[in-house]
């Protein structure tokens, strides 16, 4: 008998088709188990319907307005006429701005003619850099307070210095000591850094793939997140995501790394398999052996044995990286945590059928959200 448990909430919320509703009603009449479950879910729906709505406290807008007006809270993309509270019309303001710009332009021209200065920082796209400690260097400039990092330039920190890069209007990157980061490019479609060595921590609010970091062993695509990325002197990297998702990619391999998970890459081997940061030491060690030291089936068996439901993230990524008997082992392990949904077959998954993979991933991915 096919039970209707999965459809009971949708039935209560009138989300089923007429035919589906009829099927559920007929089934409930004759199935005690589903009828009991229906009563339970119906009770849950009744409680959920009691959740209150409330207006925000009266001073909320004033506090937002205050923060909008603070210089450091906002980016150049802030609507310019937010300052229309000033007692001049936009036309007057615009005229004044033009006059001022022309005047300043003349002054700058005169000053430069008499005191030549490097021009690239005013014409080449660049990001603002704040010194957080010591004396970081952006291009040829040592930064003691604020500076700029232009496209093509490196930001370098020694063992005593740290810096923060403002990435356009989408977030910030903190650069740790002993690091070397290049601004590869910046445009409306993509903002790209390259981490040659050292460590950075990114905090980005942006559409997926707008922010990218190259490393010697893989490329990290931001999918709206916070993460730490470290590259050692051999070009191997270590990613730890604390919020959102990051996609690590190299050649045909991708690792989708969610919050609470990590992923290693090796310059000579490529992208490793992601794993949650609270996986057992034995699990992590076996995975490292499998990914980078030809650990093979023995390492895989340890990974499977040590897996919890959250580690289906790792098992899922291993599916396309193994074949034959090893893939069957992975499939059986995944199915022990969550059976494939209706229409997804063992045979289909073993041949990596894209549609079946996607349908099962939607279900099994439920374990990958952090509590």
């Amino acid at each position, binding site marked *: 008998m096919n039970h209707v448990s999965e459809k009971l909430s*949708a039935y209560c919320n009138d989300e089923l088709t007429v035919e589906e509703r009829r099927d559920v009603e007929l089934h409930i009449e004759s199935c005690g188990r589903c009828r009991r479950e229906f009563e339970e879910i119906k009770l849950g729906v009744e*409680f*959920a319907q009691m959740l*209150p709505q*409330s*207006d925000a406290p009266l001073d*909320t807008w004033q506090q937002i307005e205050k923060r909008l007006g603070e210089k450091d809270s906002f980016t150049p993309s802030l*609507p310019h006429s937010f300052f229309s509270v000033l007692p001049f019309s936009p036309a007057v303001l615009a005229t004044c701005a033009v006059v001022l710009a022309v005047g300043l332009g003349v002054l700058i021209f005169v000053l430069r003619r008499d005191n030549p200065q490097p021009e690239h920082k005013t014409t080449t796209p660049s990001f603002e850099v704040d010194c957080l400690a010591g004396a970081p260097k952006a291009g040829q400039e040592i930064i003691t307070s604020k500076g700029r990092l232009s496209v093509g330039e490196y930001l370098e920190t020694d063992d005593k210095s740290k810096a923060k890069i403002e990435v356009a209007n989408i977030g910030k990157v903190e650069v740790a000591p002993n690091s070397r980061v290049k601004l590869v490019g910046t445009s409306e479609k993509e903002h790209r850094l390259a981490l040659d060595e050292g460590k950075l921590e990114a905090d980005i609010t942006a559409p997926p793939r707008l922010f990218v970091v190259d490393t010697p062993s893989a490329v990290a695509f931001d999918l709206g997140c916070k993460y730490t990325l470290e590259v050692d002197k051999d070009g191997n990297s270590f990613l730890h995501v604390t919020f959102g998702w990051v996609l690590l990619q190299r050649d045909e391999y991708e690792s989708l790394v969610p919050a609470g998970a990590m992923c290693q890459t090796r310059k000579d081997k490529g992208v490793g398999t992601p794993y949650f940061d609270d996986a057992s030491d034995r699990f992590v060690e076996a995975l490292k052996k499998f990914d980078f030291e030809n650990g093979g089936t023995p390492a895989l068996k340890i990974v499977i044995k040590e897996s919890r439901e959250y580690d289906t993230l790792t098992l899922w990524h291993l599916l396309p990286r193994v074949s034959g008997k090893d893939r069957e082992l992975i499939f059986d392990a995944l199915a022990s945590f969550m059976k494939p949904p209706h229409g997804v077959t063992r045979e289909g998954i073993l041949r990596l059928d894209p549609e079946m993979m996607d349908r099962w991933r939607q279900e099994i991915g439920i374990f990958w959200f952090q509590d």
Partner: protein
Amino acid sequence: MTEMKATEDLLAACQSGDSEALQLLFEKHQRRVYSIALNFFGGDGETAKDATQQVFLKLFVKIGQFRNDSEFTTWLYRIVVNTCIDEQRKQKRFFPLAELIGMREPRVKKTQEEKIERRELSDEVQSAVADLKPKLRLPILLKYVEGLSYDEIANVLEISSGTVASRLNRGHKALAKKLGHLREG
């Protein structure tokens, strides 16, 4: 149709930088944003207010990206969801320090006796929902605080409708288990 046009006009005004329009946008959406946040945080008004401010600040930075009302609404909900999750992580990270320096009252779970003394059943429900894992809590809030359909919830959370149904199933059962004693004889 008239309302849709009015919304598009308001978005256009916000995109051109009209500060009054920004405030109107806030007035239009503050209740839904605050309600989701308040229920997410189990009635903690201070955290909900912080989260609400964060949502609108992020919104105003990105307002130029939207072309129509449906895109905007989906995106608004996504910002609310992500901001609530982010705020909760910060609380988990900084909770001990906040307690030490007295910045915020610690969220202490009430005893069963204290819960029974509460007058409003909705408070009980709010507390029970806040105890759910975020992956179960969020579909409940989007469905019952905002009245979104399963497809709309799926779009906001970027999951399938099937997954929405599955999570709501689990959420409803969890609520029934936690609160069922309030309905017994």
